[in-house]
């Protein structure tokens, strides 16, 4: 591969200590049970590529995504975004990295009291973008995901696919370098899923790196993209134009 590395995960580990620690007769905790969700994940993501992170539920995909956007802290490891170790960024500056990494969630995370337009605009409002800029960018990204005609609808008036398209438009609003999608087709019908994948593919073709965590075998097999397989917190395979079970 001759492309530039955009994201470098180095030895990411994540352990949870169980709260319900069994105690002996004297009330002292015996061995502290620890669950290791990620067991030293190392991974390179290249600029402009489309990569799948696949694995069964509980494999550690979502935890890796959460660590990438600093929603969770790892027990150990480094994540380089360019020259910057994301994990060393002070908490009060995390928003700066989140503006460069657009995220799409399985449950959409839309604001129910706001219209489609307002939900997308919020990504620009938080960076204090001027109204003219918002009025120019939001229709563009809504057009890109084919949702301009629903701009005045509220989330409860949208189908699952449309809600996810709104979330993608919001993630694209501040032109991120990377788009991370965590199970974006998990809560929508297959037809809408195909539309979402088409949109994500277009986004990647425009030069934005797309990293998608999923356990949807059909989509992965259909797309013929890089497939990184994670199992019980470890990467067990990484194939160019791979299939789900390779």
């Amino acid at each position, binding site marked *: 591969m001759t492309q530039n590395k955009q994201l470098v995960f180095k030895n990411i580990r994540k352990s949870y200590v169980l709260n319900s620690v069994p105690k002996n007769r004297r009330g002292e905790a015996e061995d502290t049970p620890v669950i290791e969700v990620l067991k030293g994940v190392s991974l390179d993501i290249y600029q402009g590529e489309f990569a799948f992170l696949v694995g069964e539920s509980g494999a550690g995909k979502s935890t890796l995504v959460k660590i990438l956007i600093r929603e969770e802290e790892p027990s150990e490891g480094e994540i380089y975004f360019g020259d910057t170790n994301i994990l060393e960024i002070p908490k009060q500056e995390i928003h700066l990295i989140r503006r460069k990494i657009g995220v799409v*969630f399985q449950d959409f*995370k839309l604001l129910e009291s706001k219209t489609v337009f307002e939900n997308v605009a919020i990504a620009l409002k938080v960076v204090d973008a001027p109204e003219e800029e918002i009025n120019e960018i939001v229709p563009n990204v809504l057009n890109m995901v084919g949702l301009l005609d629903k701009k005045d609808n509220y989330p409860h008036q949208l189908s699952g696919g449309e809600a996810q398209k709104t979330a993608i438009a919001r993630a694209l609003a501040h032109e991120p370098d990377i788009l991370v999608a965590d199970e974006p087709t998990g809560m929508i019908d297959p037809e809408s899923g195909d539309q979402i994948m088409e949109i994500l593919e277009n986004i990647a073709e425009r030069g934005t790196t797309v990293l998608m965590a999923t356990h949807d075998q059909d989509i992965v097999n259909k797309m013929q993209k890089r497939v990184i397989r994670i199992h019980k917190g470890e990467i067990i395979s990484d194939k160019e134009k791979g299939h789900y079970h390779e």
Partner: protein
Amino acid sequence: MSSFERIKETFQKEKVLSFANILTMTITFLVLGIFMLIVFISQSTLSYLEQQTQVTAFFKDDFSEESILALKGTLEQDDRIAEVEYISKEDALKIFSEINADEPLLLESISANILPASLKIRTKKLENLKIIAEELSPNEGIEGVKFFEDVIVKFQKIANIVYIVGFTLTAMFLFVSYSAIVITLRTYINKKGTELEILKLVGASNDYVQRPIITQGIFFSFTSSVIATVLLVSGALIASALRIFRSGLAMPFLPEIKVSLILVTAILGIVLLLSGLLLGYLGSKNTVKKYLEY
């Protein structure tokens, strides 16, 4: 949504909580204002009383004026003493005549010889009055020493009780108000939890997320302090109209300077408004802090 719209929304959705919050904080600031006013008035009264309070040493008729003036000179050298005034028999008659100007029969029966000469001694500190009185009593030529110890001591005791009760009440109400801000904002944050989480995930800075919450906290607290200030100043205006404290209040430590009750209340009002800003800011800042961790 602007901060103003958020405040309006909180008011509409949490009517009872919002009004209870403002009522509690208004009472707090009112108690704080009244307490500060009482402290000022009692300090002012104490300064005035201290200035007026003196030891008066009355001399026997056979004790000569030279001897009295010699004692006056000695007392003036004492560091504890602020001022010594000699009242001769003639001066005493003049004072007596002024006081009893409407009693001509009484004045006719009194002559300068009957009244004793005296020294009026003012001390720098109130607690030295008794000591000076005790030191003077055994002196040759002194018939008696008088000072109004009880009035001052009693007033000081009452003032101390007022300070303690006022301070306790203020501290208690400040705590209740702080809790009221925290509870109102926590209710708001819990309801808006998803929205705040989404804002953070799409790249909002901590400042962006906490700005409207802090604005709300300051609004509640500041509004309450404004209401309390208006009530306090209104009370001062009514008191002035009723000619209470019409000669003004003596400044503590500078009793010769008198200020009007309205001016004192207005200054206390400014203190209340600043306290309102501070309480609102600290309450909301601390409430929102733990929600910015993710």
